[in-house]
């Protein structure tokens, strides 16, 4: 049976690739061809859709804006989550379990519910339509996740490591930065991957909190869909390009996943 087990992932990957193939093949078709008939391969192969995106700043700045707020969010979430996860994995303190669950509840808050209040809050403090606004809003669901993942990795590291370091004369900050962080580098990689992923794919809050200056690519796409008719080829090209940053990120963290983690003691 083991000999045929490669079939399962192969079939699954084929299933995953079909819609992606359809998107990529549409991006090389003209809108007329897409709407006119069913063609398995592009008949009149064109690169026009990509040319529009790379020459029009309203298009390519969307990618830049998205990348900026996603990066701010990832760095911010991981940096504040690190000490908190350490506290949860090493110490018992007043209300720790309640606090941990309260953090998780913020992931449960439906973005559809919070979009409007967020808009009012961020307008009131004057950061509406900045990259910082989106990055801050996304910390609501990314920080709890980062704390959760990092806590898992940290509780897999034996406490003797900390104690030996203190005996050797390390202070807490220097132990944390010079010994502990390198030890859980894989955890930081995985947490950063998830923060990047959830911030990159989110649209509702990102769209609500921006107008022009920090407009994400996904919002540019929805605006185009409604304003200039239905330029399917162009949208497909823009969609195809949104896959690339994610593919690069997963390429860099694949080894952390391949090496395995149990998020706790093994």
């Amino acid at each position: 049976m083991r000999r045929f087990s490669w079939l399962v992932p192969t079939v699954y990957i084929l299933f995953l690739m079909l819609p992606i193939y359809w998107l990529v093949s549409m991006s090389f078709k003209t809108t007329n061809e897409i709407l006119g008939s069913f063609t398995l391969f592009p008949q009149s192969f064109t690169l026009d859709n990509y040319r529009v995106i790379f020459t029009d700043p309203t298009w390519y700045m969307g990618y830049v804006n998205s990348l900026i707020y996603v990066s701010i969010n990832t760095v911010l979430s991981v940096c504040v989550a690190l000490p908190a996860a350490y506290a949860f994995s090493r110490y018992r303190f007043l209300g720790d379990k309640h606090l941990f669950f309260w953090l998780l509840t913020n992931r449960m808050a439906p973005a559809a519910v919070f979009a409007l209040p967020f808009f009012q809050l961020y307008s009131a403090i004057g950061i509406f339509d900045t990259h910082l606004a989106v990055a801050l809003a996304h910390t609501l669901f990314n920080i709890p996740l980062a704390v959760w993942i990092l806590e898992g990795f940290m509780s897999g590291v034996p406490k003797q490591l900390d104690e030996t370091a203190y005996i050797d004369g390390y202070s807490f900050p220097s132990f944390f930065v010079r010994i502990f962080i390198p030890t859980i580098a894989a955890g930081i990689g995985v947490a950063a991957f998830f923060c990047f992923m959830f911030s990159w794919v989110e649209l509702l809050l990102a769209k609500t909190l921006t107008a022009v200056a920090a407009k994400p690519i996904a919002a540019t796409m929805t605006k185009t869909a409604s304003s200039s008719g239905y330029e399917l080829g162009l949208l497909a090209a823009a969609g195809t390009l949104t896959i690339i940053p994610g593919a690069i990120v997963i390429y860099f963290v694949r080894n952390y996943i391949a090496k395995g983690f149990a998020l706790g003691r093994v």
Partner: protein
Amino acid sequence: MNKTENQKAWFLVLPVLVLVAFNAIVPLMTVVNYSVQETFGNNVFFWSGISWFEDVLRSPRFHAALGRQLTFTFTILAIEVPLGVLIALAMPRKGIWVSVCLVLMAMPLLIPWNVVGAMWNIFALPEIGLLGNALNALGFDYNYTRQPGDAWFTLILMDVWHWTSLVVLLAYAGLVSIPDAYYQAAKIDGASSWAIFRFIQLPKMKRVLTIAILLRFMDSFNIYTEPSVLTGGGPGNSTTLLSIDLVKIALGQFDLGPAAAMSLVYFLVVLLMSWIFYTVMTRDDEANQ
């Protein structure tokens, strides 16, 4: 692990607390504020007590949306979790194919949600889409914009396509972390592959699967962008999940009071169910400490 009692640990948690509280509490209070008031526009508000909550709890529309939401969430959990574990078990453990599998499988996770919705919208169109065209060519009468059953099928297939990989990645990471010694011991004992799965692999994957299941539960309950782009809740109301209904009420009809009351009820439902999941799944952990 034995944890030390240390109240100073609060200082380490403080940055997270401040950031999340800023983001969570002010907007939540805004919603609570709307939920107990009546407005006739022009920013004039009247106190209306808990009447909106009574309306929501009695409204057949809310019950219907909640029912659809529960059906959706439990269907996708029942498909994605076993399927994800199965694929993770069948994946290679060493060599170049591991990287190829991981990178390709992670791709759907990294596509913006509106692109996922738009992509499936066209992919499933009966005439010009690959899926719709293929199904019709095979003799099925498939049209997801007209038939509620087809719309549900498309919606669930899209979610399985989109999110099974999350379960696969986490389950796979858990599986790989199991030391070889466990398998050797099992081999000596002559354990069947089911016994290995039940008594070695499943317990060792518990923490990662807890995260996978809870994430899928919470995120599928809050799903908005993909179904709203794919079907817009239609045909009729057949795929109007909770978030879509909420946005229809809040922005479409601009009924802030009822929408806010509904949001809170909705939030409490997610909270309660997540709490049950969380307690059940982490109970053994506590017992071990």
